C-alpha cells in the first residue's frame, strides 16, 4: 500500500515535471523579440559624444554597449537631424550628426514607429530611443567613416 502510494506520487511528479519542462522549451523556442521601446533606457548620450567615444576606443565601447546574444544596450541619443531617408524595408532612417563630426548616429525606425519619423525635419534637435547594433569607426576598405547603428528607433520626449 505504501509502495503503491510512492509510485503514484512519483508518477504525478514526473508527469507534471515533464509537462513543465515541455512548456518551458516551447516558450523559449517561440519567445517574442525584445520590445525595445518598452524596455528601460540603459544609456543617455548625445550623438557627438557617442561617436567620439567609439572613435577613441572602439574595443572599450563595444564592451560597454554590445551584448553577447545581440540584446545590446538601449540608448537615448540626442542630436541634430542631418537627413531623413527610407531604407529598402520602407523604414525611416534618421541620421543624427553635427556638421563638424566625422560620423553620426544612423537610427532606423520600424513599421510600428515609422509614423513618428514622418514629422521629423532636417536641422531639428531630437532624442531617439533604440537599440545599438554597432559603433562608429573609420573603415579603410570603404575609405569612409561609418555611423553608429541604432535600430527599432522612436522619438522620445526627454524628461
Amino acid at each position, binding site marked *: 500500500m505504501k509502495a503503491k502510494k510512492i509510485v503514484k506520487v512519483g508518477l504525478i511528479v514526473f508527469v507534471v515535471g515533464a509537462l513543465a519542462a515541455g512548456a518551458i522549451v516551447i516558450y523559449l523556442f517561440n519567445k*517574442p523579440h525584445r520590445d525595445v521601446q518598452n524596455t528601460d533606457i540603459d544609456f543617455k548620450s548625445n550623438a557627438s559624444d557617442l561617436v567620439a567615444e567609439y572613435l577613441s576606443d572602439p574595443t572599450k565601447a563595444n564592451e560597454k554597449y554590445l*551584448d553577447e546574444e*545581440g540584446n545590446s544596450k538601449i540608448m537615448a541619443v540626442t542630436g541634430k537631424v542631418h537627413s531623413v531617408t527610407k*531604407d529598402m524595408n520602407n523604414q525611416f532612417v534618421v541620421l543624427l550628426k553635427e556638421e563638424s563630426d566625422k560620423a553620426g548616429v544612423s537610427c532606423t525606425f520600424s513599421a510600428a514607429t515609422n509614423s513618428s519619423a514622418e514629422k521629423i525635419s532636417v536641422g531639428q534637435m531630437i532624442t531617439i530611443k533604440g537599440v545599438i547594433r554597432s559603433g562608429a569607426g573609420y573603415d579603410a*576598405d570603404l575609405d569612409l567613416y561609418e555611423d553608429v*547603428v541604432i535600430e527599432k528607433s522612436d522619438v522620445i520626449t526627454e524628461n
Partner: protein
Amino acid sequence: MLNQIINTMKKLASLFLIPAVIISLVAFRPVAGKLVSKNAHINFFSHTSVEDITANNYKVVSTLETSTGDLAFSVPMQSFEFEKALMQEHFNSGNFLDTKKFPKAKFDGKITNISTVNFSQDGVYEVDVTGNMTIKETTKPVNTKGTITIKGGKVNGSTKFNLVLAEYGIAFKKGKPSTNIAKEIEVKVNADYLSE
C-alpha cells in the same frame, strides 16, 4: 529664297539644339568616381529538411569605385533579424558568430570587368566579382557573378552566392543547430548607390 529657308532652319535647329544639349548634360550627367550605398539589403537563407531559416539586414554600407571597380561591403552583424528571437540570440552568441567580439563582417574586392559597365547609359550589366570575405577571424576568397543596373542615373548592384559556414569556422557537431542549419547558406545582396 531657298538659302533664306535653309538659314532660318539652321537658326531654328541651333535654338533647339542648345537647350537639348544642356538638358542632356544635366539629365544624363554620368555617375562616376566613388559611389556610396547606405541603402542596402542582405538576406541569407538556410534550408534543411527540418527547417528553413532566413534573416535580413538593412544596415549594410558599401562603396563602389566606378573607375577601378573596387568594391567593399561592411555588415553590422547584430542587425541581422530573424523571425524567432531565440535563433537571433544563437546567431549572435559566442558559439556562432560572436558578434560582440566581431561586430562587423567585411567584403573587400573588385568588379573585374568594370570597363564593360557604361555608367552613363541605362542598362543591365552582368559583372564578375572577386574578393575576400572576412567573417569572425577568417578571411576567404569569394568569386561570384553580379548585376549592375543603371536606370535614370541611379546605380543598383545585386548578387547571389553560396557560403560554406565551416570555411569560416562556424560548425556544429551536435545538437539542434547541426541538423537544423544548412552547411551551405544562400546569400543575397542588393544595394542602391549614390555619388559620394
